[in-house]
């Protein structure tokens, strides 16, 4: 993966998060503490500030650097969770992965996120997007970069009727039902951003 491509991936992810910061915050205000958009924006602005340095690193090191920036800057639980995802990918990916290797690395990184958040599928979290996206990715086939954003968007929509079990939203119990999970939405946005860069390639 060349430097320019990595730079574009970072730019697309940061742009997506920054452009949707208010929407993420509004979702989080409904069922959480209302800081998800601002926190993610702060984290990705930190990543963007170092984008050229990060893009110059081999893919695994670049992902570890992104993860560390998110851990240090986000300031909410999403920092360690997204940071763990990025660092987990960095640990599991070779420098030039095939699609199958990338899908397997994502599966391992998702296990790291489950451990970090003491959570699993069906609890109204980012995992409810990441898990189906990984499954579709692993099944492979044509037009992955076109299909995965739709899988992610549907999976985020599917968190609306779920009841939160983990995180601040769990304090609301039944009242968390009827709102999309902000972490699921930010995960869906990141999947869309990454796939858009692959679609341009």
């Amino acid at each position, binding site marked *: 993966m060349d430097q320019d491509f990595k730079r574009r991936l970072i730019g697309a992810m940061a742009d997506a998060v920054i452009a949707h910061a208010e929407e993420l915050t509004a979702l989080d205000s409904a069922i959480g503490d209302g800081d998800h958009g601002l926190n993610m924006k702060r984290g990705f602005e930190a990543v963007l500030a170092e984008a050229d340095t990060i893009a110059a690193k081999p893919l695994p090191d670049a992902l570890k650097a992104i993860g560390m920036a998110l851990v*240090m800057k986000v300031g909410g*639980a999403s920092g360690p969770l997204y940071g763990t995802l990025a660092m987990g990918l960095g640990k599991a990916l070779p420098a030039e992965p095939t699609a199958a290797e990338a899908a397997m690395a994502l599966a391992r990184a998702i296990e790291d996120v489950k451990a970090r958040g003491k959570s699993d599928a069906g609890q109204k979290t980012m995992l409810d997007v990441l898990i189906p996206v990984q499954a579709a990715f692993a099944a492979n086939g044509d037009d992955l970069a076109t299909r995965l954003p739709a899988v992610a968007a549907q999976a985020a929509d599917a968190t609306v009727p779920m009841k939160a079990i983990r995180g601040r939203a769990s304090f609301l119990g039944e009242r968390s039902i009827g709102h999309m999970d902000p972490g699921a939405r930010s995960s869906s946005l990141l999947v869309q951003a990454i796939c858009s860069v692959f679609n341009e390639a």
Partner: protein
Amino acid sequence: MGEQKNVGIVIVSHSAKVAEGAADMVRQMVGDSVPLAAVGGNADGGLGTDVGAIVGAIDKAWSEQGVAILVDLGGAETNSEMAVEMMPEERRERIVICNAPLVEGAVMAATEASGGSSLDAVRATAEELMGG
């Protein structure tokens, strides 16, 4: 700084004011007999927690007997776990995050620590509050 023979206490809140206030209450109980550090707020000074600041607080309250961390809400716990993993390996097993309410837990843990109790005993005293 407190004496190295007692377990240290770290307070991690989303709010700098809560962290400072809880630390004031601990000091009133135990004075300087327990190494203590309190952090609150994200890197921009808003509500939230900051992994780098938590690492600094663990360093500040470090004791060879270990450190007990008291947290408030979810992100404080997740960020504290991350901070513990960033500590040198030989320290990690001597750091615990207590499943206890922040203010009461910090005061109870520090009181236990001030008597020279082990890290396990300090943690157990703080966590008894959850059983009440």
